């Protein structure tokens, strides 16, 4: 019996970096702040980090919010520091915005609004995922 031992591995693109999924609204829990802290820590160690906003997490990106009105230190303003930490890949689920009747107006630049399939493809290109 002859065996050729031809193992055919499908040619997947290499999965790299950390993905952080934000799924909670900004002011009623610490999840958004915790996710931000993790992102900045990875960024400061020059690790590749991408941010994903899905479900109620999309509210974290909406413009003209003001946490001081509800006595909350507004960590959302720190989002504008992402570029200094080389965090450039910020993805938002378009369907989540549509469901919540939100415009694509964000308080930071460089946000990529993606369809469900683009969003999942971007997420699946990462090696590790943390969800908040």
């Amino acid at each position, binding site marked *: 019996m002859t065996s050729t031992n031809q193992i055919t591995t499908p040619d997947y693109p290499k999965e790299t970096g950390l993905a952080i999924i934000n799924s*909670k*609204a*900004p*002011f*009623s829990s610490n999840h958004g702040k915790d996710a931000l802290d993790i992102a900045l820590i990875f960024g400061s160690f020059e690790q590749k980090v991408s941010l994903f906003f899905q*479900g*109620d997490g999309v*509210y974290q990106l*909406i*413009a*003209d*919010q*003001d*946490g*001081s*009105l*509800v006595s*909350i230190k507004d960590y959302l303003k720190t989002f504008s520091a992402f570029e200094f930490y080389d965090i450039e890949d910020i993805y938002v689920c378009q369907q989540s915005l549509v*469901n*919540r*009747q*939100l415009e694509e107006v964000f308080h930071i630049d460089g946000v990529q609004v993606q369809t469900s399939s683009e969003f999942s493809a971007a997420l699946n290109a990462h090696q590790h995922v943390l969800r908040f």
Partner: protein
Amino acid sequence: MSTLHLVRQSAFATNDFAQCLSVLDHQDSIVLMDDGCYNLKHSLMDSLIKRVDGTININVISSHAQARAIETLTEINHIEMSDVVELTFNHKKVITWQ
């Protein structure tokens, strides 16, 4: 008799607001506070406003909505937290949906 419903969660994330509406009586009042303010943009709110046609008192804490950059609706009263005290006295019971 009458019940005051304090809605504190987003209907996009939890089932609480739907459960609240399922037990809502015609002399009840609703207060949207904290993440409950997001329900202003939920389809359940559109259908509620159509269904009750002004007979149910619907309120939102204005600072909570403003903090979240949510535009409010004309059919809904804007109140402060201090007004909730009076509302609790004007109703027989209070249910907090959180």
